[in-house]
């Protein structure tokens, strides 16, 4: 199997490694990240559930855009990925 080049991206302010072109979600899982977001009402944690872009449980804020389905969004070096709280907010790249 051909993996992409190893690249670095930022997850919640920390540098994390992954492979270019793999889904953001698998790079995070491989780094031990389980919680991808917290729900709007109860603030309970969610992670990868369907892994094919149907369920939206794995949505995160990516480069300031909330609700990105990380299981089907390819990783690129330098992406800023954040655990999403509720609906997230636009332009949030802290």
């Amino acid at each position, binding site marked *: *199997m051909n*993996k992409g080049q190893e690249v670095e991206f930022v997850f919640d302010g920390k540098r994390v490694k992954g492979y270019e072109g*793999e*889904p953001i979600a*698998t790079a995070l*899982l*491989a780094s031990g990240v*389980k*919680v*991808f977001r917290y729900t709007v009402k109860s603030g*309970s*944690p*969610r*992670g*990868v*559930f*369907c*892994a*094919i*872009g*149907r369920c939206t449980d794995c949505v995160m804020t990516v480069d300031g855009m909330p609700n990105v389905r990380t299981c*089907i969004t*390819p990783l690129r070096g330098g992406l800023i990925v954040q655990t999403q709280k509720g609906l997230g907010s636009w332009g949030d790249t802290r």
Partner: protein
Amino acid sequence: MIETEFAVVGAGPAGLSAALEAGRAGVKTLVIDENQASGGQLFKQIHKFFGSKEHWAGTRGIEIGNRLLMESEKAGVKVMLDTVAWGIFDGGKVLALKQNEGIRRVHAQNILLATGASENALAFPGWTLPGVLGAGAAQTLVNLHRVLPGMKVLMVGSGNVGLIVSYQLLQAGAKIVAVVEALPKIGGYGVHASKIRRMGVPILVSHTVKEAAGDGKVERAIVTQIDEQWHPVPGTEREFEVDTICMAVGLHPLAELAWIAGCQFAYIAELGGHVPLHGKNMETTIPGLYVAGDAAGIGEATAAMEEGRLVGVDVARRLGRLSDREAEMLVSEIESRIESIRSGPFGDMLREVKKKLIERRG
């Protein structure tokens, strides 16, 4: 507006096979898929297929996928990837697409919805915790992306998906603490069950998961025996230390576009739930609008490919690219292959319910 003779939503086994068959006959065909690559769910199926000798038995899903991509390329099938078909208008003749941040439309006299299926879930306390996921999801992660969702797994459901994914997780280095099955017997093929039992995995029949617990993620699973009325048997609870719970409790057709278009549906439990009524040629109750594959009732990829071919032939015949005689010959070949796929204990049942579905369409 994009004009084409035949538009297909979904570049999985059914959609590609339809496009391939139509493309060969000279029909101007366009396939639309929301993913980054064609092939649907074939590429996560690294195991050898079962079923009829005549039809792909002994071949791995991934090889079927590769062959399908090669053949479609040869037939000149055009696939628009990374494009979501989100609506259908004008009596099922116009598809609305989202591509990047823009909206486009496709007009076609013939449209096939080959949109596949989605995994069922079980709701139990703790089922939303990170670490609870679909068995198909785990299969995608491990086989396609080579990343394990966790190291200690409880599998819920002993159908073929549960058994095969358990084996593949074992191969990838995870531990399967147990497979639980609510029914009093194993659901899938004996050969798959034996494989994982030989590796020391207990299959607990008449058992189900009662609860998932943990601090912000799955750390424990509580399993209980159930009686014939599906009630938990007191005193039979067992706790397993796990970081992952996979649910292999079936699939349901993804047919939203058929609902939107106004197709008539029937609820058929054996086919996974609500299914668009379709004829022998896979046409829904809306003329020129077809369904095939899991969207037309959950089945095997091999049958999905044949159903797709039926649509491709029918469209080519309608457009006059195949004579009635040529089409009839192709259809009878395809139908006999479907017959052979749908033989044996699982297949017989499927064949009967599919017959019912077609009769209801009239």
